[in-house]
Every structure is written in structure tokens, then in C-alpha cells.
């Protein structure tokens, strides 16, 4: 008896929730509003948003703070979509079709449960900002063409599980912002020095001992630049310079002394320190049940 009552209660609740969502979608259709906000509506699946894919003209879809588990391939039918925000959902898989969206410029997949990206993910034609903060990604989870998104201005990979950053990162010629905060990164590739437009580099909270001297060629300490590098087990000379400020670090890694130290360090193959942070409690981890 009791369980039946409970069932009917949640059923009513579901239909009320869906009615609300439906109203938002109907409104958008009637008013021709190209921007759709469905933030924090308890949505668990795209089936709870009937009529969404008929809104062929929307340019922004914000679905943050829901419980969406997967993205249907039909998402690519929203041809005019420029901004897709899925921050804080339960997404584990992405459809391949996502990368074919012809106008998608900003994609936020932060705080989901992604452990891999689909094959061909790097095929986005005009993507400028990609946010993958706080997922379960590492270097093995990236498809081969990941760094071919030439139009990319900003790449957010903070709070993931990377130990290495592939040298192909140097192919992102338009990159201005690279966030690698709080991963397990042991070594940065010298190709980061190829990112001549980089103005923001966040590498704090990793397992870095040294920086490739090539980073010294970037403009990371001007008034329009950001360099965050605290919470790494830096070798003493870098740690000492960091005490006085990041501009001193950059000046130091440009010196011949440092280049020598760096080559020695590389030749010696000093083992990296073990990971410090326990990440098992992250909400991006798959829930057991």
C-alpha cells in the first residue's frame, strides 16, 4: 500500500516537472527566443524535453545543474547552436555527431562523468572554448585528433587525471587559455612553447618538478597575462624564484643556467613524486549502484 502511494507521488512530481520544462520550450517556440535556459530543473534525460529538437533556430542551450546521463546524437540537429552548456550533469558518453555541429563555438562539459571522448572528437569546425573541467579524463582518453581543433581559444582541463600532456598540444595555434590545474601532471611538453598566443596558463596543483625552458618564450607575465603555478614540487631554484613572483620564474627559466639544469634533470630521469591528492571522492566518479 505504502509503496504504491509513494509511486503515485513521484509520478505526479515527474509530470509537474515535465510540464514546467514543456512550458519553457513552448514559450521559446512562441516567442522565437533563440536562447533557452533549462538550468537546475531536475532533468534526467532529453526525453523529458519534448519539442526541444524542433527549436531549430536556437543559438544557446543552457542545461547546467541537471542529472542528464547521455546526450542523444540528435543534438546535432540544432544546427544554429553556438553555445551548449552542460555543466554539472551525469554525462558518461558523448555522441560522435557532437563534433559535427557547424556553429558550435562554446561547449561546457565541466563537472560530468566523462572517462573518454568519442573518436573524431577533434573535428569541431568552429569550436573556440572547450570546458572539460572536473571529469575523469587522462591522456589515454583523448582521441587522436583532439588537438586538431585549430579554432580553439580556450581549453579547460582542470580537475582531471592527466599525467602527461601530449606534444600535439602545440598544434592549437590559436590557444590563449590553457587550464591544467589540479591534475597529476609529471612533465609538460616543450611544445607548449609553440602556443605563441597563450596568455593564461594554469598549472597549479600538479606533480611538476621543472618547466620546459621553451615556456620562457611565451608572454605569460605581462599585464594581460596569467600564470598560476603554485602547489607543485618544484626544484629548489624554481621554488625560490616563485617565492618572489612568477615573473622571476620566467626570467630564470630563460637563463642558460636553467637550460643546463633542465637538460641535466631530463637526462637523470628523476622519478616524479607520487600523487598526493585522493580523488576517489570526486563527484565525477561513477556511482556504484
Amino acid at each position, binding site marked *: 500500500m505504502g509503496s504504491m502511494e509513494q509511486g503515485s507521488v513521484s509520478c505526479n512530481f515527474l509530470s509537474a516537472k515535465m510540464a514546467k520544462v514543456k512550458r519553457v520550450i513552448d514559450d521559446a517556440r512562441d516567442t522565437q527566443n533563440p*536562447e533557452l535556459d533549462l*538550468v537546475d530543473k531536475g532533468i534526467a534525460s532529453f526525453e523529458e524535453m519534448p519539442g526541444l529538437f524542433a527549436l531549430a533556430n536556437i543559438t544557446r542551450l543552457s542545461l547546467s545543474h541537471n542529472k542528464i546521463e547521455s546526450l542523444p546524437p540528435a543534438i546535432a540537429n540544432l544546427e544554429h547552436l553556438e553555445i551548449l552548456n552542460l555543466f554539472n550533469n551525469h554525462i558518461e558518453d558523448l555522441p560522435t555527431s557532437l563534433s559535427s555541429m557547424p556553429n558550435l563555438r562554446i561547449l561546457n562539459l565541466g563537472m560530468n562523468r566523462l572517462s573518454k571522448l568519442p573518436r573524431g572528437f577533434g573535428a569541431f569546425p568552429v569550436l573556440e572554448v572547450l570546458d572539460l573541467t572536473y571529469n575523469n579524463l587522462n591522456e589515454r582518453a583523448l582521441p587522436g585528433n583532439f588537438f586538431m581543433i585549430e579554432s580553439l581559444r580556450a581549453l579547460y582541463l*582542470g580537475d582531471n587525471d592527466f599525467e602527461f600532456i601530449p606534444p600535439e598540444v602545440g598544434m592549437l595555434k590559436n590557444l590563449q587559455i590553457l*587550464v591544467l590545474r589540479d591534475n597529476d601532471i609529471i612533465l609538460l611538453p616543450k611544445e607548449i612553447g609553440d602556443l605563441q598566443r597563450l*596568455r*593564461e596558463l594554469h598549472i*597549479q596543483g600538479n606533480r611538476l618538478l621543472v618547466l620546459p625552458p621553451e615556456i620562457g618564450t611565451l608572454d605569460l607575465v605581462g599585464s594581460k597575462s596569467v600564470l*598560476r603555478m603554485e602547489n607543485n614540487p618544484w626544484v629548489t631554484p624554481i621554488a625560490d624564484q616563485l617565492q618572489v613572483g612568477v615573473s622571476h620564474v620566467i626570467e630564470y627559466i630563460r637563463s642558460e643556467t636553467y637550460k643546463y639544469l633542465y637538460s641535466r634533470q631530463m637526462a637523470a630521469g628523476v622519478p616524479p613524486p607520487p600523487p598526493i591528492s585522493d580523488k576517489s571522492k*570526486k563527484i565525477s566518479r561513477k556511482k556504484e549502484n
Partner: protein
Amino acid sequence: MSSSREVRSPPAPKMKGLEQSFLYQRRQMAHAQARELAASNARTPLHEKDFQAEFDKIQEIMNEVGGVTPLPKTPRSFAPNLAPPWQIRSPQAERMRELSMNLGASECSRCHEGFEPNEKVLNSNGELWHPQCFVCVQCFRPFPEGVFYEFEGRKYCEHDFQVLFAPCCGKCGEFIIGRVIKALNANWHPLCFRCNMCDKELADLGFIKNAGRALCHECNAHVKAAAIGKHICYKCKQVIEEGLLRFRGEVYHPYHFNCASCSVELNSDAREVTTSRPGYSANQVNELYCLRCHDKMGIPICGACRRPIEERVVTALGKQWHVEHFVCAKCEKPFLGHRHYERKGLAYCETHYHQLFGNLCFVCNQVISGDVFTCLNKAWCADHFACALCDTKLNQKSKFFEFDQKPACKKCYEKLPIELRRRLKRMHEEQAKKGSV
């Protein structure tokens, strides 16, 4: 089996080093040949005089070993570089019988000792063996599952046969387990057998032997056409006999296109016109016009050098330009299709636009004309200053938090997991401390 007599052990086997094995030497030779072939291919110049292509066939052999498939199995033929002189025997095909009859003058094929009465004897293809003598010549262990491989009168267990004689890839030199591609007198992993020019995998596409190299059909056609001074159409992949059309860096038969103005089928006199929109790199528009329509538009004169433009025309800033003369007003580097930004009738590269005028909106990446929000090392136009996590609009009065140098509204920030908020807070405090030093 039932007898409990002492078993005399066979004469102590003499273990020869692997490098003394005749087979090993032959394999090393074949290997060296494959390497030499690969090296000579690498040396072959592209404009090889002898462009006559031979069709060559890919032969494939599935090479299933390594205990993937359970019994019953019949060992398959391997595919080494040489004609296979070995035999492979399976106990299933040819059950070995245990003979307990009186064998008189018979002797063991290995140790050449006789057999005691009632002693267990193995018969394999007419040869008799003490069970303890019927072992792999390499590792001296019995044959797992009874499967052995015979070569030049010697028997090997599957593992050692694999190590000694499995084919080696002509490119990477590693053993090939699984699918073997036999081509150009060598063996290849399917992933290692690629077009010598474009690196495409050839295992399933087939290939053409061209001057000792393997080429895909497309590259071969290109090489052939280049040798007679012709091009291949990017669209239909056929040779362009006469009159080609260049469009977006590729060459085509002109008849694949129509004039953007009058729709007439184009010939090789057609002209490519590029219109460059400020701020975009992906939205450059290239169009083709027939000569008549192009002339009606007037022979374009370059806005920089004042000379007529014969080849590609760039339209921007209300003028037309030679591709190489449409340059940044500050550094004078040509944009060559890269995005440019306009201000007061001049075009700038992104770097110099930034340097001189600042302020592209982080969201729309366009020059901000009205109100500007600047914080977190970025700028936003009034329409686009919003929470990065939920897209809720922010204004001067909104309280927001910094998250990786992006704005997060209070509601969103409070939804972040506590452990993350704690880390962000600690980071901020450290940053603030450093700022005050």
C-alpha cells in the same frame, strides 16, 4: 603407465645458441633484406622516371597463435618470408598411439636407445619415442596440448616455433601475430603497410607497386599525372587533360563548378574571389565567377599596390586586394586567410588589434563597441557578461566568484562540491597573500 620402473633419462641434450640455428640465420637474412628494401624505397625520389605501375596483390594469412582460440585447433600455416618447408602436425589429425607390443629391435628416434618390455612408447608418424624424449628441441619440454611444429626434421613447441619462425614486419621489425600482409616480398602488420606518400593504410584498399614502393590508387594517379606534367582533379580524381581550375588551394576540372553570378558552367578562365569577414577565421567566403561576370565586376585593382589582380582576389574593408597585399596595418604581415579585425578602415591581426585597442568579448570574440566589462584578465560586451557555469547574466552589482579566471555566480558556486570549494578558497588565500607581499 602402470609400470613403476625407473626411467632412464635421455642423453643430456646439447643446447645450441639461437644464433647458431640455421633457421634463425635465414630469418635474420630475410629481415635484413626487408630493411634494405624499406631503405631503398625511402631513397626513391618522387619523380621517379619509371612511373610505370605494376598491380601487385596483397596476400593475407591469418596467423592465429598465442592461445587465443581454445582446442580443438589445427595449427595454421605461418607466413614467413621463405617458402614453407615445414610440416605441422596435430595430434587430432593423427592420433599418436601408445604401443605396448614387443618392439624388438626398434629404437627411440631421439636417444637411439631401445625400449624395455612394457615400457610406454609413443608413435608419431612411424617414428618411435620414449615419452620423455618426445619434447621440443628448443626448450626440452613436452608439447602443450600435444601440438608441435616440425621443421627440417625437428619438432618445436608452439611458443618456440613462434619465436623462431613467426614472420617479422618489414617496417617495424616486430613479430606479426594475427593478420599478416604479404606484399612487396615482405610481411607487414596491417597497420604498418601504408601508402608511401600519404600514409593511408593499404591492407583493405589494395595498392599499386610504383618504383618499388607501395602507393594507394590516388597517390599513384598523382605520381603518374605529375610525371607527364598534369594534375588530378580533387573532386573526381581523374587526370585533368587540359584547362584546370584552382579553387581553395586545390585543382579541379572547371566543369564541376558554375558561376556564382550567372550560373554558367565554368571553364579554366574562371576567377576565384575571396571575401574576408572580420573576426572570423572559419567564415571566409570563396566564390567562383566566369570571366564575363568577373569582368563586369570590373578588373579588380589591389587596394595596396594599385595593380590589377589576376589571381585570387580578397575582398575586405570595401576594397579588393592581392592575397599577399592584404596585411596587418601594424606588422604588415599578410593575413593569408587568418582572421583579421577592422577599425577605422584599417585591418589588424589579432595580436596587434589587442595591443592597440584591447577588448574582444570572451564569449562572442567580437570587438566590443558599447559597455565593456573587464575583469579576470578578460573583457565582455554587456550582452555576454554572464556566469560561465549557468549563463545567467551578470551586471556591475552581481556578486560572483572566480573559477579558473571565469566568473561563477553565487548560486553556481554554492553548488560546487565542498572539497573543490575548499581547494579554490585555499588557492585564493595564497594568491591574496602573495599579492600583498
